[in-house]
């Protein structure tokens, strides 16, 4: 729970492509003049996806410059919301819902099974860098419990067999590109 560690710049260069910059401009335009800070959450979602699934200091500074706000305002927001990762994760970030409704419908056993199957503990990443296993709170899909999300896709009505299938498919997909229409830029 205690963070208090100071992050370092990674010394990488970041910049959005012109296509994304155009989208960013459109997003900023949704808010009244001078309220461009409102666009912070949508743009951080895009930034996280563009920088490999997590927000490093450089990309946050870059977002701050795009929105003409101070970097500290971006750090404060990025640390508040759980969807933003501050550390590098595996290719697939598996987040199993562990809140009440899922837990009483077998969610705890799903987590146990995933730990056994991936041979890691919750919070760890597999040695091949493919999977990071985490827990999350209610995903708003309790009727389809147990639920987990992998990166930003939902997987519902989980069972051990279904987990086997999902992991196999993900492993096969690991080198392929994302299916069209599933990126944040395209959703906005």
């Amino acid at each position: 729970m205690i963070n208090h560690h100071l992050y370092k710049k990674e010394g990488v260069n970041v910049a959005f492509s012109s296509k994304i910059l155009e989208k960013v401009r459109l997003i900023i335009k949704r808010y009244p003049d001078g309220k461009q800070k409102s666009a912070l959450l949508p743009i951080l979602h895009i930034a996280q996806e563009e920088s490999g699934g997590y927000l490093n200091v450089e990309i946050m500074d870059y977002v701050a410059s795009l929105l003409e706000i101070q970097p500290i305002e971006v750090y404060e927001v990025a640390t508040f919301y759980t969807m933003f990762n501050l550390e590098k994760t595996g290719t697939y970030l598996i987040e199993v819902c562990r809140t009440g409704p899922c837990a009483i419908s077998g969610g705890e056993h799903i987590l146990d099974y995933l730990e056994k199957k991936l041979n890691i503990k919750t919070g760890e990443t597999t040695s091949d860098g493919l999977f990071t296993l985490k827990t999350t709170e209610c995903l708003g899909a309790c009727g389809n419990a147990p639920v987990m999300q992998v990166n930003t896709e939902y997987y519902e009505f989980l069972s051990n067999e279904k987990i086997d299938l999902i992991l196999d498919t993900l492993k096969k997909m690991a080198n392929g590109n994302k299916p069209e229409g599933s990126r944040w830029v395209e959703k906005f």
Partner: protein
Amino acid sequence: MVKVTIDNISIEVEDGTMILEAARKIGGKIVPPAMCYYSKLKKTGGKCRTCLVKVAESSSRDPRPMPKLVASCSTPVQDGMVVQNITSKEVLDARKAIVEFLLINHPLDCPVCDQAGECDLQDLSFLHGVMATRYEEGRREYPAIDIGSYIKLHMNRCIHCYRCVFVADQLTDQRVHGMFYRSDSMEISTYIQNVVDNDFSGNVIDACPVGALTDRTFRFKSRVWFLKPIDAHRECNKCCGKVTAWMFGNEIYRITGRKDQWGEVEEFICNECRFERKEIKDWFIEGPRKIKRQSVISANKYEKLLKPNQK
């Protein structure tokens, strides 16, 4: 002007005044304690909940009581409002609870804390707290870090009042520290290695109600109650230059803003005055400063103790 009655004492104040400010106008025991509100900074208050009071009658037009206790620092008075502070058991109980909450994760390291003796939390727990703690779980522990050459951050002691954030927002041109994460892992930090250095950044030390932000140039030099507060001033082109110099013999151990009876500085001072003018010749001495607060400084609780290096 509107009329408000606090603990059976009535006073007329300007429309829009907060209950707490009205109480301060009356003064004395009926003033609710404040840990996060700071009248010199905009938008502060509402967070610590130590200033909760009961509104027994909302106004003369609508004499119904407010359903919950309200934060007196952020609730404006209305004409005919009747407020209970120390006359309400509910309020006193709630305040005790808040003190308990503020202390459960506090390290209680007063013996090694530079703020001891002038700490709002010490005063608060002394006046409103309960003696024994019911908390047996682990406490939050953070390493202390330096944020720049002048200021030390002991996150362990922070009560999350946000005052330092508002100081940086309202007095300095660029804020480099802030509140991160959330819930009970919320913390003050700079996120990346960064230096809080700005002409007015030192004011976070005065505004911090506890020993979370302390003066590195004064660290462990002395306990405050061994020092004599003297009002002094100098010509300064950055700030008002009016300070309190904390002296031991003829030496200035540290400089702070001049704190009023509510523990708030009268005027903010610049870093040059605070950290770099420690020679007596830098200052015009005005005379001893009376510290009116409850603190052990004025209560002389430690009078008979010897300073460690005085043996």
